[in-house]
């Protein structure tokens, strides 16, 4: 079952991905074109390299066979090929520099795009927050502050010297009211005159006498 679905998804040969808006820009295509040329040069270098190896091998064999002149000719050719390799390296560098420049410019474009959006947003917000509005609000706030000061002044004037005294007295009251007064007329138990045990005996005797008196009566 799993294999069946894997086949459905993975199969279909070289089917292209579903069509949609391409996310590949013109710059991307330009970069790709440059990279393609670099690939071509890379392939060329590989070819030259194998050629150099071949010439080297053949030259060795010629030297062994004593054909020095022909070997020399081949080594000259090898030298020439090596020069080509160096030149190709420079070309690849040129291409890659162009790619880097393009990629960097793309980044710069993104930065500018970001700044542009930020600027638009800022302007949008400034529109909401117009100068006249701010001025009006600040004026109104100033007025309100002035009004509040007037009220404060009016309230301050109404308080005379007597009022001040009364306020001070009230404050004193509140401060003293919190402390509990010491009771002056509290009853203090008398100091006992005899031992606690003796008192008890006396009392029981008294009770006995009372009982006796009742019996007599």
């Amino acid at each position: 079952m799993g294999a069946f679905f894997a086949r459905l998804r993975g199969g279909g040969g070289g089917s292209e991905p579903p069509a949609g808006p391409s996310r590949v820009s013109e710059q991307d295509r330009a970069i790709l074109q440059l990279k393609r040329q670099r690939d071509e040069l890379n392939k060329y270098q590989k070819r030259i390299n194998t050629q150099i190896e071949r010439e080297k091998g053949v030259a060795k064999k010629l030297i062994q066979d004593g054909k020095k002149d022909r070997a020399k000719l081949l080594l000259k050719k090898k030298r020439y090929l090596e020069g080509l390799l160096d030149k190709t390296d420079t070309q690849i560098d040129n291409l890659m520099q162009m790619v880097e420049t393009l990629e960097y410019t793309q980044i710069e474009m993104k930065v500018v795009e970001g700044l542009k959006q930020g600027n638009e947003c800022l302007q949008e917000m400034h529109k909401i927050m117009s100068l006249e509005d701010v001025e009006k609000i600040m004026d109104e706030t100033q007025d309100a502050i002035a009004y509040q000061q007037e009220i404060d002044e009016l309230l301050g004037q109404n308080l005379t010297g007597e009022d001040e005294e009364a306020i001070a007295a009230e404050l004193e009251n509140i401060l003293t009211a919190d402390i509990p007064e010491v009771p002056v007329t509290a009853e203090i138990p008398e100091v006992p005159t005899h031992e606690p045990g003796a008192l008890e005996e006396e009392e029981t005797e008294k009770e006995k006498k009372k009982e006796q008196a009742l019996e007599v009566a």
Partner: protein
Amino acid sequence: MAVEQSLSRALASFQWPWQYEFPPFFTLQTNLDTRNKQMDAWCDLTLAYYRHIKAFTMDVNEAQSSPLFNNSKANRKLSVDFIRLILDTLEKRGNVEWQDTSKSRCLIMWRSPQEWGQLIYQWACDQGLGSSVCTLYEIHSGEYATEQEFYNMEPWMVKKAIVALAREGKAEYIPGTAPDDSDAGVKFFT
């Protein structure tokens, strides 16, 4: 010659399953149960073998004499029909794709396009290639991919992997200008 040498060197470390030394393994079994098991073992062995030698295409006639289907020590080899049967089974599993109607050549995917896609995507992210373009050549032969498992992978497999990534929205395939599409490119999205 060099290819054969490197192949034999690569095979020296290959772990053959025990069945490979078992002569009946090379004859199609009649019992259905046994035959299914035999087929599964052959499918697994084929994929493991191709993974080991890092090959992606098979020519059926050539394959008959490859060590995979030809055990010279046991003096046993598979018939072309048997090989086709294995490949058809692998096709049903999604690992094989025939390249012609006469079924003489096929593509062998020992890793699914999705899996390859994931590996390539991971590499692209590591390389910081996100939201930039690169050529398919860069992926299978570029100097920054030499350490990767997909280095030297065949271009058609790379293309399949990219198409699979495109389906997931992680990349976009950019068709090439050459008739064989060898200069195609890809844009990764991170």
